[in-house]
C-alpha cells in the first residue's frame, strides 16, 4: 500500500490522460479537422495552380500543423486546474518532472502523432511530391514532440488566467521558430532530392533538449499558476 514507484505512477497518469482523450473523441478530432480546413484555405487564397501549391506545400503543412498543436496545448492543464486535480498532482510524492512529462507525452500522442499520421493525405491535396512524404511524416513526428514540449510551457504559465487562448500563442510562437525552420527545411530538402537525415538529426537534438529542460519549466510554471 506504499506509494507506487515513479514509473508506475507516470504510466498511470499517461493512461489516465489517454482515456480522458479517448472518451471525448470529438475533441481529439478537432485538431485534425482544423488541419484539413486550413489546408483547404490555401488553394483558395493562393490559387489552384498545382506547381505554386507544391512550392508552398512544405511550409504550409508545417505551419498548419504547428497551429493545430498550439491550439490544443492550451487545454492540457486547464481541465485539471479547474477541478483541483492539478493541486493533487503538485502534492504527489513522485517527482513533478516526470508527472509533467506524462502529460506532455499524452498531448503528443493525441495531437502530434495523429497529425503526423494523417499529414500524407493533406500533402497529396497540396501536390507535394510523393517522394517528400516520408520526410514530412518523420519531421512532423519529431517536430511535433518539440511543439508539445514548448506548448506545454506556455500552457503551464497561462493555465491560471481566464483569457489564456490568445496569450499562449503570443508566448509560444516565437519559441516555435527553430522547429518550423528545420521541419520545413527537411521537407524541402526531400523535394529537392537532398539528404534529409541532417535535419531530422537536428530536430532529434531539439527533442532531447526539450525533454531535458521543458518539464522543469512546466513544473515551475504549474507551481506558480497554482499559487496565483
Amino acid at each position, binding site marked *: *500500500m*506504499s*506509494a*507506487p514507484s515513479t514509473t*508506475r*505512477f507516470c504510466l*498511470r*497518469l499517461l*493512461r*489516465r490522460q489517454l*482515456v*480522458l482523450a479517448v*472518451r*471525448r473523441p470529438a475533441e481529439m478530432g478537432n485538431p485534425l479537422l482544423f488541419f484539413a480546413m486550413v489546408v483547404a484555405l490555401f488553394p483558395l487564397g493562393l490559387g489552384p495552380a498545382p506547381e505554386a501549391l507544391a512550392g508552398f506545400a512544405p511550409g504550409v503543412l508545417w505551419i498548419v500543423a504547428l497551429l493545430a498543436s498550439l491550439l490544443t496545448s492550451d487545454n492540457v492543464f486547464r*481541465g*485539471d486546474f*479547474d*477541478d*483541483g*486535480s*492539478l*493541486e*493533487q*498532482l*503538485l*502534492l*504527489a*510524492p*513522485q517527482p513533478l518532472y516526470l*508527472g509533467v512529462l506524462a502529460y506532455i507525452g499524452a498531448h503528443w500522442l493525441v495531437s502530434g502523432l495523429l497529425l503526423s499520421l494523417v499529414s500524407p493525405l493533406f500533402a497529396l491535396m497540396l501536390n507535394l511530391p510523393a517522394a517528400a512524404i516520408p520526410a514530412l511524416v518523420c519531421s512532423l513526428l519529431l517536430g511535433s514532440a518539440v511543439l508539445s514540449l514548448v506548448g506545454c510551457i506556455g500552457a503551464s504559465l497561462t493555465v491560471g488566467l481566464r483569457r489564456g487562448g490568445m496569450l499562449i500563442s503570443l508566448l509560444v510562437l516565437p519559441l516555435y521558430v527553430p522547429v518550423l525552420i528545420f521541419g520545413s527545411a527537411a521537407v524541402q530538402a526531400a523535394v529537392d532530392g537532398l539528404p534529409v537525415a541532417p535535419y531530422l538529426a537536428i530536430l532529434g537534438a531539439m527533442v532531447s533538449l526539450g525533454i531535458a529542460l521543458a518539464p522543469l519549466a512546466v513544473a515551475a510554471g504549474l*507551481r506558480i499558476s*497554482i*499559487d496565483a
Partner: protein
Amino acid sequence: MPSGAGAPLLAASDLCLVRGGRELFRDLSFDIHRGQLWQVEGANGAGKTSLMRILAGLSRYGFDGRVQRRAPLLYLGHHSAVKGLLTPRENLAWHVSGAGDWSDADIDDALARVGLCGYEDVASHTLSAGQHRRVNLARLYLCRAPLWLLDEPFTAIDRGGVGELEAVMTAHVAGGGAVVVTSHQALQVDCEVRSLRLGAGGAQ
C-alpha cells in the same frame, strides 16, 4: 499513542500573511503532533484556506515564516479533483496525487464505505456534487498518510455523511494520525479538539 510524542508531523513557525494590504494572521506558530485534531476557525476571508494551502505546500511565496513537513500528507481542497469522464473507480485508481497503489477490492470497499456502492462504474459526471465530494472522501479510507489537511470537508455532505466523516477523523487520530480541518460547525468527536482561531489580529 500519547499526544505530543516524538517529533511533530508538521511544524509551522512565525507564519504571517498579508493579502491586499490586510494582515490575516501574524506570528502563527504551532506544532502538529500525532494524535491531535486541530480545527481552524475564522470568519469568511479570515485566511483559513490560505493557511491550509501554506501548510500543504501549495502556496510557496507571498507569506513569511517557515513550515516544516516531516510526513506524507493528504490534502483535500475545495475542488473535488474528480474527473467527470472517469468512473469513481478509475478516479481513485489513477489518482493524480500518486499516493497509493490500490487493488480494485480496496477501492470498492472504500467507495462502499462512503455510500457509493453500485456507483463504481458509472461516469462521474452523472453523479451529484455531494457524491463527487464522497468520491474524494473515499481517499481517506485508502490513504495511509499520517497527516490529513481537510479544507471544508463537510461542504455538500448530508448529515449522515458528516457523522461518518467525524468517525473516520476520530479513528485516524486514535490510530496515531493527525488531522487539521477547517469548518464552521462544531465537531462532534470524542477526542480533544485543538482550536486555531484566525482573524481579529491573529491567532489565539
